[in-house]
């Protein structure tokens, strides 16, 4: 029996191969490709993890001169991790309300001929290289925000974020967070938009028929339906913000420190920026320290994602 099917063959002649073999070639090939692709991604992930482990673990305990003046690995990584989280959370605070509002505008408020171009432009934002965002933040947005910095330190100094001498060039964590927010906005917006648009029409009409305004309909029907999708969207945005390097590295002049103050000249340095700025002039010991901080970032993002999934799953079970 031949497995390779001859399209010209009379189907009546070889009924056995008709039943058992014909057409299965495509299945075998496709199944093979699917399995290989799925395996490959797991292997790649494992390889990254193993690389980080092997190269990074020595970095936990090298001579203390390699810890950028912080004395020990913990002394270095804790402020870095803090800064990474701080910058990402600041970016989320700016980006999430905008993203949800834009997504709602596209899915439920705007007429279609406006919604489609708006959605397209937002998606295009995701295609802008992060170097360009960094440059824009440092050269354009930073100087533009200098008066804002001054205003914040004058009027909102009772908040620890703004209590101090404002930066004269606007290249601060404040500016960097806004740039980061712009960078994570497309992913959050497009996922929210997709889940909002999938709200069952039946639920929307249930709310409208009760005399709900459009906003009430959104609260009654769209948000409850989209909640877990919105959490995933925010977590993906958070993931991108945690790992983002260029925007922060290019905009701020960082120091390894823990501080809430975000509009000064000295800004907390994130892990990604620390690696990007340090790895070129590094000795092997210094390099393994940097890789070790990368390992911490990897583990941390992994934890954040696991936590997000747990939240989403718990929301569904209710």
């Amino acid at each position, binding site marked *: 029996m031949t497995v390779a099917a001859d399209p010209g063959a009379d189907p009546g002649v070889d009924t056995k191969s008709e039943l058992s073999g014909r057409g299965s070639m495509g299945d075998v090939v496709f199944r093979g490709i699917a399995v290989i692709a799925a395996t490959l991604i797991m292997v790649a992930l494992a390889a990254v993890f193993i690389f980080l482990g092997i190269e990074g673990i020595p970095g936990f305990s090298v001579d203390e001169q390699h810890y950028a003046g912080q004395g020990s690995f913990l002394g270095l990584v804790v402020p870095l991790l803090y800064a990474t989280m701080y910058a990402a959370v600041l970016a989320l605070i700016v980006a999430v309300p905008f993203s949800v509002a834009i997504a709602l505008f596209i899915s439920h408020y705007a007429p*279609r001929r406006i919604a489609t171009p708006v959605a397209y432009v937002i998606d295009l934002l995701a295609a802008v290289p992060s170097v360009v965002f960094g440059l824009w933040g440092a050269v354009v947005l930073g100087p533009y925000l200098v008066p804002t910095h001054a205003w914040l330190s004058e009027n909102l100094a009772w908040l620890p974020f703004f209590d101090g001498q404002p930066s004269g060039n606007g290249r601060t964590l404040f500016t960097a967070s806004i740039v980061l927010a712009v960078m994570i906005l497309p992913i959050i917006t497009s996922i929210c938009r997709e889940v909002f648009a999938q709200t069952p029409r039946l639920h929307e009409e*249930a709310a409208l*028929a*009760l005399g*709900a*305004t459009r906003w009430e309909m959104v609260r*009654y029907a769209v948000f*409850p339906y989209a909640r877990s999708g919105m959490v995933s969207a925010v977590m993906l945005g958070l993931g991108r913000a945690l790992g983002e390097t260029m925007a922060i590295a290019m905009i701020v002049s960082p120091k390894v420190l823990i501080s809430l103050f975000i509009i000064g000249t000295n800004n907390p340095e994130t892990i990604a920026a620390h690696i990007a700025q340090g790895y070129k002039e590094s000795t092997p010991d210094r390099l393994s320290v940097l890789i070790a901080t990368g390992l911490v970032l990897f583990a941390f993002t992994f934890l954040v994602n696991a936590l997000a999934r747990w939240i989403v799953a718990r929301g569904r079970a209710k």
Partner: protein
Amino acid sequence: MSIQVKDTSIFYGDFKAVEDVTMSIKPKSVTAFIGPSGCGKSTFLRTLNRMHEVIPGAYVEGKISIHGQDIYGPNVDPVAVRRKVGMVFQRPNPFPTMSIYDNVLAGNKLNSKRIKKSEADSIVESALRGANLWNEVKDRLSKPGMGLSGGQQQRLCIARAIAVQPEVLLMDEPCSALDPISTAAIEDLIHELKSDYTIVIVTHNMQQAARVSDDTGFFNLKAAGQPGHLVEFNPTKQMFTKPDNPDTEAYISGRFG
């Protein structure tokens, strides 16, 4: 609350779905719309609470007034119309994340109204009693509405609709997704509700129209691709015994549709 409909045509963009309907719906009675699929009876029903225009491009021409007030008048808020004219849909649609209790109160809590707990309790009880559901759910009001059976969910939706005390209740094939026993429960309920509400029901089931309604309107298409129109509107008894129009008789006796 009588409903007067005059020369009303209904459009989806350029497509005219229903043409020139004129009818007068009596208060505190049950009016049924029957007709083959796609003849515009559901579309017409949805114009009575301005739900039709929720679909992009859809609009209505003509005049529809409820209790003497033109519901398509220039200063009329569709949201206010929908509070006066409740609606029950083909498939039960309780809010999936809400408990039975919150589902019933959903309409009352709109427009940021604050209700006292005792008042809320009594609204929930009377609405659920009104929908013949109280005895079945009174011990599990905090459970999700989606946990009920299909027929119970539909009665929950009726309770939700009557909790805001509308004047008119529209039902769009409320039994088409239900089994015969649940259907009988809903039909009994319709009989009870008509002492308080003006009820308009769309149904595919002619026996159901004959059982529950006082007046019946028969919608039909003139031809495929043509808009639907109202063929005949008469008391149900007359419609099912000696209709004026031969098309009505043909449809009711099962010769087409």
